């Protein structure tokens, strides 16, 4: 009743909706490319054509033979890009799912079991947040060496603490809410409350958080691959394409720049959707 500041509703945000639709279209395009990479790619991603080395992209002096040009070994950039999108997307999505599973399980366990389990999980969360993940990842890779399974699992530990913290906090808030109290007072079992009421109430936030974490994972994967400690050649990923092309930046700028821009468009699109999702599901904005 004593609303000091009258609620200010955002004006119809047409422009933003257009941006979200565009972003969704982009993400779908990337997914389709990832699925049908072999069929869409004009050349094999590792096919070397030494006669066509360092061809410029179309409109920059190149031809339709290699629309996005070729690299220093004459490999078609477009074909490599398509395979890279698949590798990067699969790695990041898998990692994202692993992180969400770990985080949600631990967060719920902490909120549900309380006591020493809660303390332990909180210490782990605190610790994980206290070492920047990239440093943590580099350390693990230094000690264990590199292989793709380890790499995916390692990325899967990125951001688990955010899910755990969020789910724990939200679940604790849910547990404090009147309806949980009411259900207990009705004699409902704890398991039923957790599964039928608390989890569905925090589910939306988990999904939002995943769309926010996914672009960060793509950046992380490409960052590590760029540094040469992630996805290793001959396998291609967006990051290692940039990393390998970096040496030719002065003479053949497109080798590094094109996959870099692909990463940018992909992350920007997912971020735009995640941002929008966060705003629509945020109860404080309703």
């Amino acid at each position, binding site marked *: 009743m004593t609303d*000091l*500041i009258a609620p*200010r509703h*955002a*004006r119809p945000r047409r*422009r*933003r909706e257009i941006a979200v639709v565009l972003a969704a279209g982009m993400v779908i395009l990337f997914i389709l490319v990832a699925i049908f990479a072999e069929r869409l790619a004009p050349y094999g991603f590792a096919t070397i054509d030494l006669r066509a080395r360092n061809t410029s992209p179309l409109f920059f002096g190149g031809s339709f033979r290699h629309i996005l040009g070729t690299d220093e070994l004459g490999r078609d950039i477009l074909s490599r890009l398509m395979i890279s999108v698949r590798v990067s997307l699969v790695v990041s999505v898998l990692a994202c799912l692993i992180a969400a599973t770990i985080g949600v399980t631990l967060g719920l366990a902490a909120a549900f079991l309380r006591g020493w389990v809660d303390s332990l999980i909180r*210490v782990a969360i*605190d*610790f994980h*947040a*206290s*070492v*920047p*993940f*990239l*440093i*943590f990842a*580099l*350390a*693990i*890779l*230094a*000690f*264990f*060496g590199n292989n793709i399974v380890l790499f995916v699992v390692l990325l899967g530990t990125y951001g688990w603490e955010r899910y755990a913290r969020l789910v724990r906090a939200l679940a604790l808030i849910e547990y404090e809410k009147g309806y949980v109290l009411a259900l207990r007072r009705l004699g409902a079992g704890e398991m039923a409350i957790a599964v039928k009421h608390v989890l569905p109430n925090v589910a939306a936030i988990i999904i939002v958080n995943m769309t926010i974490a996914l*672009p960060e994972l793509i*950046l992380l994967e*490409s*960052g590590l691959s*760029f*540094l*040469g*400690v992630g996805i290793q050649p001959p396998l291609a990923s967006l*990051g290692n394409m*940039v*990393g390998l092309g*970096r040496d030719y*930046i*002065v003479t053949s*700028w497109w080798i*590094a*720049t094109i996959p*870099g*821009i692909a*990463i*940018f468009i992909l*992350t*920007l699109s997912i*971020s*735009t959707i995640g*941002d929008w999702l966060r705003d629509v599901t945020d109860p404080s904005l309703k």
Partner: protein
Amino acid sequence: MTRTVLTAVARLVITVLLAVTFVFVILRVSGDPARALLPVDAPEDQIAAVRAEWGLDKPLPEQYVTYVMKLASGDFGLSLNDRQPALRVVVEKIPSTLLLMGTGLVIAFTVGSALGLLAASYRGRAPDRLIMSLAIFVHSIPSFLFGILLILLFAVALRLLPSGGGPSLLHLLMPAAVIGLSQAGVVARFVRSSTLEVLAQPYITVASLKPLPRWYFIRAHVLPGSALPLLTLFGFSLGGIIAGAAIVESVFAWPGVGRFLVFSVARRDVAVVQTIVVLVATMMAFANLATDLLYAIFDPRLRTS
């Protein structure tokens, strides 16, 4: 107050100890630590010597104690690089990294807070939308791509700045800009939302009814409330800046700890890597300690309750 300080210090000690334990565990799990700490072609007697020195022939708890004691005394093992003590090699490179991070941090917080405040005061209107779009933009651009584009523009096309190397002020410009601007987006979003949150507080309405000059009202009532949460962000973005430094230093060949870390990981120079991990964790822990203490100083609700 003493309680706050003690809690904060306890948190610091626990975090550092956890980092050490973490390194100890992965060192043990990943194989023979003695071999890991030495070059691949090290002779057997040297391996045996290291094993004895680090107490690796003893039971695990004893190994752990020896390990912690050695680290505490500053012995992190020898770097593969010229067989120098790892700690010394790393410490040598700290000043240039701190210079880069510090400049980046300053850029991130000044640019970020200014844009965040601007966005908040134009909430929902064009400047707000522009700034928030920019924030997502810089958040989505990979820092290595950002760096490469800057090099293409300023070093290759315009020939204004050196493409890499250093450390010098001229060399510092581009990497610091990349680090700072990538974080500025996060800061801007944060400042915007904390400012809007403060502006929605009833005490702001009450204060706005008092006969106070505009500048004083903002300085005394709006800014303190919206700046306080920045302390939390400080610890958080320090992590982002440290991580960013590893990539950015590599792109610009900046002779700092980050580039050295990447280099050492590729060579599997375990002694150097463990040094850096422990140092980074210590640094982060100190940042968190500072945050806790500053909160206690600036927020009376924590100071007197």
